[in-house]
């Protein structure tokens, strides 16, 4: 039962982006298109699952004094793996994600889950937690990326939605840097209202 709870809590209740406001740098940077968001989400989820698995497996062996360097090396190893695989099989995606692939190493969500969950929970629960958090992170990126791609380019997953008339004069700012900040601010505000409504009902 706790396994299901560990899995689902990352998706909404403890969503790493919208509730905990972690992992902001890749979140804001790669959400220019839904495709990039999905690619980044998949890469981060893979690293998250692997690192949570290993950290949880070795939680009784790693001395607590050097645990952070150990976690960082574990995470960096998997990030290198993702980097090489993506470079070989998805070179276009690799190019558009750019330096944010090596920067998965310093994504606070991954280190945060290793430190805050995996190092004191059994392997199965840690993997469930990683899957949930990964889905939550990906979902959050896809939500913001949908808004940005739709408003800034008139497309979703490169399929034209708003028509060529819109594409001639799109809301370009949504795809530029300020659009990410402003749209995220409104989404966070929306979640705050949602949470307040929920609190009032109970």
């Amino acid at each position, binding site marked *: 039962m706790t396994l299901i709870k560990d899995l689902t809590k990352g998706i909404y209740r403890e969503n790493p982006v919208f509730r905990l*406001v*972690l992992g*902001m*740098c*890749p979140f*804001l*940077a790669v959400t220019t298109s839904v495709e990039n968001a999905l690619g980044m989400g998949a890469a981060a989820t893979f690293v998250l699952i692997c690192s949570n698995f290993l950290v949880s497996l070795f939680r009784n062996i790693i001395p607590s004094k050097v645990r*952070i*360097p150990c976690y*960082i*090396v574990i995470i*960096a*190893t998997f*990030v*290198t793996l993702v*980097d*090489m695989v993506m470079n070989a099989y998805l070179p276009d995606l690799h190019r558009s994600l750019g*330096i944010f692939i*090596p*920067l998965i*190493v*310093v*994504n*606070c969500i991954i*280190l945060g889950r290793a430190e805050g969950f995996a190092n004191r929970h059994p392997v199965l629960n840690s993997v469930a937690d990683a899957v949930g958090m990964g889905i939550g992170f990906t979902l959050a990126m896809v939500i913001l990326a949908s808004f940005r791609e739709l408003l800034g380019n008139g497309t979703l997953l490169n399929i034209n939605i708003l028509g060529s008339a819109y594409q001639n004069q799109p809301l370009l*700012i949504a795809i*530029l*840097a*300020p*659009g*990410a*900040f*402003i749209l*995220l*601010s*409104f989404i*966070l*505000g*929306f979640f*705050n*209202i949602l949470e*307040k409504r929920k609190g009032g009902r109970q």
Partner: protein
Amino acid sequence: MNPTVLLSVLLATPDSGSQGFDLGKMMAIIIASIFVNNFVLARFLGICPFLGVSKQLDSAIGMGAAVIFVMTLATLGSWVAYNLLLVPMGLTYLSTIAFILIIASLVQLVEMILQKFSPALYSALGIFLPLITTNCAILGVAVLNIDEKYSLGYSLINAIAAGIGFTLALILMAGLRQRLEMADVPPAMKGKPVAFLVAGIMSIAFLGFAGLGG
């Protein structure tokens, strides 16, 4: 050694082997890293400290100084490790692991040295140093310098300029947030949402620098 000769050796690009020091390129790097490609507002690097430490002007200045300091040292360390160790040994695929280890141990080292030799500086910067290891701006500048194939001199200039750009954004943000404390913000937008909104407006302002310096 004559300082000009030393400078030109430092600024030579390692791949082309071209000598001499290009003031124009240097200025372009500085302006690009501080304004056009501001690390926080255009490249989205270092957002976590940008939001976390921008509530007070004092701590923003402290964090900015610590970031400039560590960024310069980390760039030095990672450039030397990459070009003198990883490239000759054919281990460039290990660069991510190597860089993060260099940064983590460097931060630890700086913390210990400051604690021992300069307690005053330590008490000012101390609390920010552990946070810096996971600041993606530090690793970001190290990776960017390698991607751009900058020489050591250009790398260091880029690192310092990037640190100044980060500090500039942080200090501006801290000033704005201190004013925001007294503003009448709708309850749903209080805290993080309004901070992002302000960052967005600042980012629009920084868009105005686009095209400057190439």
